[in-house]
C-alpha cells in the first residue's frame, strides 16, 4: 500500500478531527464538553504525528504523542478539580456564568431566549397497583443525589 496515500488519508482524518474539536470547543457551553473537545483536538494532532512518524520512519512523532497523552492526563486532573470548584461556586457547568471580570461598562451576554425543553412523548407502561402503597420517605425524596 502506498505510503504517501496512507499519510494523506491520515492527515485528512487528523485535520477533520482537529477542526471538529475546535468547533465543539467554540460552540458548546458546557465546561466538560469543552474540555473533551479540546482533547479531541489533541487526538487530531496525535493522528497526524503518528502518520508523519510512520512516513519518516522516525520515533519522535510517537514520543511526542506519548507525552501529549501524559500532559492530557495532567490537564484532565486540573480540569476536573477546577470544574468542580466552578460548579460549586456558580451552581452550573455553563461557561457563560463566568464573564464577570470584563472591561468596565461592557454589557454581559445574556441569553435572549431559552429554548423550551424538547419533551419526548414518553409512554411509560402503567401497571395496576397491587397491594398497599408504601409510605413515601420524604427525607429520601429530597436527599442529595451525590
Amino acid at each position, binding site marked *: 500500500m502506498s505510503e504517501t496515500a496512507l499519510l494523506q488519508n491520515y492527515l485528512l482524518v487528523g485535520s477533520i478531527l482537529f477542526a471538529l474539536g*475546535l468547533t465543539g*470547543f*467554540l*460552540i458548546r*457551553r458546557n465546561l466538560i464538553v469543552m474540555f473533551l473537545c479540546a482533547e479531541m483536538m489533541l487526538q487530531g494532532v496525535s493522528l497526524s504525528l503518528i502518520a508523519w512518524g510512520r512516513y519518516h520512519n522516525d520515533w519522535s512523532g510517537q514520543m511526542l504523542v506519548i507525552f501529549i497523552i501524559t500532559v492530557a492526563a495532567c490537564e484532565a486532573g486540573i480540569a476536573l478539580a477546577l470544574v468542580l470548584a466552578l460548579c460549586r461556586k456558580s451552581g452550573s457547568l455553563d*461557561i*457563560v456564568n*463566568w*464573564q*464577570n*471580570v*470584563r*472591561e468596565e*461598562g*461592557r454589557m*454581559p*451576554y445574556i441569553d435572549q431566549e431559552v429554548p423550551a425543553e424538547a419533551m419526548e412523548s414518553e409512554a411509560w407502561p402503567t401497571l395496576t397497583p397491587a397491594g398497599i402503597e408504601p409510605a413515601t420517605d420524604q427525607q429520601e425524596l429530597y436527599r442529595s443525589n451525590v
Partner: protein
Amino acid sequence: MSDNLIILIPFFPLLAAILIAILGPKLLKENSHYVTVLAFAASFVCSLMLFFSVQGQVVEEGTSFESVTTLWTWAAVDNAMIDADGHSVPFLIDVTLRSDALTSIMLCMVTFIATLVAIFGAGYMHGDRGYWRFFAYVSLFVFSMTMLVSVSNFLLLFVFWEAVGLCSYLLIGFWYHKPEASAAGKKAFLVNRVGDFGFALAIFLIWINYGTLNFHDYVVDGQVIIPGVFGQMRLGGALPYVQGGMATAICLLLMLGACGKSAQFPLHVWLPDAMEGPTPVSALIHAATMVTAGVYMVTRCTPLFHASPDAQVTVACIGGFTALLAGLIALTQHDLKRVLAYSTVSQLGYMFLALGTGSLAGIVAGMFHLFTHAFFKALLFLGSGSVMHAMGNVIDMRRFGGLRHLMPWTFRTFLVGCLALAGIFPFAGFWSKDAILASVHDRAYPGAHSHDSQDSEHDADHDADQDADDHATHSVALLSADHAGSNQADSYTNIYVWLYRSACFTAFLTAFYTFRAFFLTFYGPQVIPDESGHHAHESPPMMWIPLAILAIFAFLIGFVSELDHKFAHLLTSTPSLAFAGMHDTMQPGGFHMDIAISSSIIAVLGIALAAFLYLGHQREVEAISKLKLVAPLRALSLNKFYLDEIYTWAVVKPLEFLGIIYFWLDRWLVDGLVNLIGKVPVALGSGFRYLQTGLLPFYSLSMVVAMLILLFLGQVLWGGG
C-alpha cells in the same frame, strides 16, 4: 586641566543634589540653600576657568579647538551594524564630555544665572514646606543642564534632554497641591515628549546614516576609527554629510525636538502654563536652562542643517512666526509673568530666526542673543518674583500699580531689564537684537551691506585679516559652495525679506509690551492688593542683590562682548561652526549702522506709544468713558478722550484684536490639535475595549479568526509563502 574642570562643573550640582536629597529632610532643612549656592558658585568658578583656558587654547591653536574627555564606556555591542562596505560597525557609547567654545560659553552662562537664581530662591522660598526639596530639584536641574551642554554624543544629549524635562516637570509641579501646578507640570512633560519623539527618530536616522552618535572622532592610537558626526574628518570635508531628503528629514525631526524644548510654535503651549512653578524656577527655565537647550542643539548641529537649506528656511520661518505670534499675544496679557513668558517665546523665536539664516553671522547672532537674553530675562523674572513676593503672590497687573517708591531696587533693576529687552542702546539686548536683524537683512538682501554700510565693510576687512589663512585654504571650497548654494538660496530670498519685516515689527511690539507691563506695574497711583497685608515692602537684600548684579550685566555684557567681536571670534572657533562649508558665510558681527539706527527708532517708538497710552492716560480713558455716559460735558476731557479713542481704535484695538485672535487661535486651534493628538489614542482604546467582553468562547473565536485572517493576508495579499 580642562579635563578635570569639565568633570567638576556638573559634579558639584550633582553632589549638591545627592547631599540635599539624603540630608535635606532631617539635617539641612532650612540651610539647604548653602549647599546649592556653594556648589553652583564652585561650578561657576570652574566654568570661568574653563572658559579662559578654552580661550587661551583658541588663541594658541588657531581657529578650531575641542577637547574630549572620556569617563567610561556606557553601552557597547560588538556587531551592531554592517555598513555598506561589509565591515561591521561596533555600537559604542562612551560617556564623553567635551570642552569647546560653545560649551564653555553655555556653561558660564548657565552656572552664573543658576548661582544668582539660587541666592534669590533662598530668599524667595523662605519658609516653604518643601524648601530642601526645591534645592534638591534645582541642583539636579542644573546638573542635567550642564551635562546637556557638555556631552559629546547624541544619545547622551537625549538622555539629559529627557532629564531636564523630568526636572522641569518636578519643578513646575513643585506646588503639586495646586491643581493648576500639577496640570502644568504634566502638560510641560507631555508636550516635551512629543518633541522628544521627533528627536529620538532623528537620532536613529543619524545612527543609520553616519554609523555613530558621537560628535567627535573616535581615535585609537592616533588613528580615527569611527569618524564622529561633527568630528574633524567630516568637518574637514574628508567625509561627506548626507544631503537631500534624508538631511531634511533629520533636520526637521531635530527641529521638532528643539521646538518642544525651546517652546516654538506649535509646541510652545507649555511654557506660559509653566508659570505655575515658583518664580525662581521660571527664571531658571526661561533664561538659562531648559529653553536654551533647543537653541544650543540646533547650533551644535549646524553642519547637519547646513546640508539642507530647506530645513534652514523652515527653522527661520518657525522662528519668525513664533516671534510675531508670541509678541502679539503678549500685548493683551494682564499677568506680569505671562507677559514675560510670551516675551521669552518671542525672543526664542528671534533666535531660531537667526539660526535659520544659515549664515555664520546669523548663528553667532542667535547664540549672542541667547547669551544676553539669559541675563536680562533672568533679571526680569526675578524682578517680577520680587514684585510677587511683596504683593502676596498676586501677579495680576490690574491689581497693583505705582510700586516705584515702594520697591526702589526692584524698580531700578526692572527698568534696566526692560530697556535691555526693548533693545535700547547701549543695553545688552540692543547689540544682540541688532546682530539678528542684520543677519536676516543680509540674508534677505544679499550683497546689500557692502554698498550700504561703510562700517560693516570695515569690519569685514578686519575679520578678513585675521582669517586670511583660512580663506586661503578654503577659497576653492568657498567658490564652489557659493556657486552651488546661490541658486538654492535665491528662491528663498523673498521669504527672508518678509521675515525681516516681521522681525522689525516684532521689535516694535517687544518694546511696546515690555513697557506696558513696566508702566502698569511701577507707575500710576500706588495700588496694593489685600493679599500682601500691610507690610508690602522692598524685598530683602538676599533678593535684590542678585537683581542688582544681573542689572549690571544686562547693562554691560552686550557692549563688552561686542567689543572687538570677542564673542563672535570665540564662538566661531567651535569645531562644528568652523568647517569648510561655513566659511562662505563668514564676516560675523557685521555692525550695520543703518539697521542699528532704524531698530533703535522702532524700539523708541514702541516705548513712546506705551508711555502715551499707559502712563497715566489709561485710567483717564476709563474715567472719561464713564463720565460720557453720565454727563457728556467737560469739553477738555472730551477732546482728550476723542484723541485717545482715535489712538485706541486705530492702533491699540486692532493690535489687541489681533492679539486676541492669536490668543484664541493658540487656545483652540493649536491646543485643540495637541489635545486631539491626545484624544485619538483614547478613542482608539475604547474601540479595543469593546472586544473585551469577558466571554471566554468569544475570546477563543476571536483568536482563531484573527489567526486565520493573518494567515490569509500573508498567503494571498502579501503573496508570501
